[in-house]
């Protein structure tokens, strides 16, 4: 375990002291760069009522490069593929070291409220979202019920 950068210590302390509503991010017990994340599905979205598990990893050169984030819970969303990879600009070319774990997770929650089928990662899902939004939303609700709700 290399020494932990102060930036990570600071963010971890703040996440635990002032949690973001609807989001929980807990550092792994044995790896301070790995966070267990749970995001609640936003109200008035097809993901409402679901609890979505993600993993977040801070790479060696964080914050100069973006955290690596992935959905672990299956989700029917045009910008998230079947392996849980997320298509979000701030995780790629629009990353800035002034962004933080909390801002990243809030952006992901916002992506659930506002899917963007014009910038797809899951092509079949995006296609359906464009040609038949009602059916896509039904699928998303069904997947939420099936994979993101405990009972």
């Amino acid at each position, binding site marked *: *375990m290399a020494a932990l950068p102060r930036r990570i210590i600071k963010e971890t302390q703040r996440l635990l002291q002032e949690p973001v509503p609807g989001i929980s991010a807990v550092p792994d017990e044995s790896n301070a760069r790995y966070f267990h994340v749970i995001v609640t599905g936003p109200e008035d979205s097809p993901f409402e009522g679901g609890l979505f598990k993600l993993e977040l990893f801070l790479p060696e050169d964080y914050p100069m490069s973006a955290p690596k984030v992935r959905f672990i819970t299956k989700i029917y969303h045009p910008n998230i593929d079947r392996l849980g990879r997320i298509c979000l600009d701030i995780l790629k070319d629009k990353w800035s070291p002034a962004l933080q774990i909390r801002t990243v997770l809030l952006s992901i929650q916002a992506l659930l409220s506002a899917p963007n089928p014009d910038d797809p990662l899951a092509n079949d899902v995006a296609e359906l979202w464009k040609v038949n939004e009602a059916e896509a939303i039904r699928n998303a609700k069904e997947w939420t019920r099936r994979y993101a709700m405990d009972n």
Partner: protein
Amino acid sequence: MGICWCKEKHEENESYFPQSNNDNIDSAIQSVTPFSSAEYYLENTEKGCPDSLTVDKLVLETLGIIGTLVDNEQEPPPSMLRLHNIADNEEGWIQVVKSMVNVIPMTDPLGSSVITLLLDDSPLPSRESVLHVASMFNLSAQSALVGRINAPKQRNICVVLGCIAEKLAGPSSLGILTDSTLDYLITNLNTDTDPNVILFSLIALEKFAQTSENKATIIRRLQSEPSCPISKLEAWVRDDHFIKKQVGFCAQWALDNLFVMPNRKFSYLTVDNSHLNAMLNTSDVSEYLKISPDGVEARCDAYSFESVRCTAQADSGVWYYEVTIITPGVMQIGWATKDSNFLNHEGYGIGDDKYSLAYDGCRKLIWYNAKSEPQHLPRWQAGDILGCLLDIENQLIWFSVNGHLIPPCTHVFGMAKSGFFAAASFMSFQQCHFNFGAEPFKHPPRTTYSTFNDTGVLDPECRQVLPRHIYLNQLRQQSVREDSCTLCYDKKASVRLIPCEHGGFCTSCVGQLNECPMCRSAIHVVVDDTSQ
């Protein structure tokens, strides 16, 4: 190089070795590929699930090929691709799990790794599928006892449980660790169970404990037993039997790091390291590698390719150390400078960049810059001694297995001429023991040489291998100054950017920026902000 297909492709195409190496791999693949019709490996058209015999065959084929794969950039073998497609639907996933449990033999050093590889690259199963699998195994104290007649199957079930526990850490993991699953795993810890089954039961418990409610449940259960079953296994750490030795190592690690029992002293407080002047460096290791309290043994139970360097450095002269191979799977052991990076999640380790060179006696390959060169020695076995000799004056690295030398390697000296450390990378479930000279060597070289233990210096805190929870707690209590840089929180904020006027950064962070981190406008001038 660790085996991993999730990483992005590399641009680099230089080869440091003759191209003919690939012929061996091609012929090896052909020799274990009994089917060749395109239909058999058809992609993206998997409808329903093929019969269990077909899946059994695909699993065995993947197992046969996996040890011959040396390059992350090459496509995964067709059998593996097809298994991924089959596992894409729930029924198929269940069949793949069933086949792996039934057909993977315990004797293959890569057997347990193949299970983790296949499950790791498959889409996550639904909760229903996982519960279905759990009920299919019919886990209970009774089934643990009855299962003793078929140790390989029980071993595989435990590997699968560990994988599922790790992938589904959280609420779903709670659903699988029922009383009967716990009964099954705890019953397996009895000392008269096959040690392979004990080992992977212990690892499965460790993976379940990644979810804190499970951890509390497991600790309660261990405490309710007449005597803690893991404590009994800890004594095996000094056993001569190599599987039992692994059980002992994992039991000790679990008691220090996860299942902390009252009345047991942490190993770092009881171990005597006074004779050691060189160890594995606990501040220079990738996150998941387990290091023994005496700092000279390491083990990986994660699915990444974990690496470590030693504490002492070699700058000139001739240096030697030995490694006892405890598990015969994929490890890359050799020499690395500090320029060598540990990219554990991408599958890159020692021998996978220009600043390190390693031998992997499972696949029988010398590794340099992520390229491999086959060697003509038998595959290494538990108990084999790997000798690692570094001759800086003559720019040669020699490896030997049980005293048999491999032709010397010179590759790394083009990039590095000093600053070498003993270093190693481990695939999942691999373990070895280092001797930097504190114990007599089994196959000492005939030339004059130095050892890290003769010349190394360890200050008291480096001598301690702290349990992670203690170490991380110490780190997290460090305080952060108010006037520090808002990017690194490490140095003092001292500069402002012109023209946007955003400030609160230090010079070393700004030096790494192309645009303002707040507003993304171009940086024309950086001005000192401390005089105000």
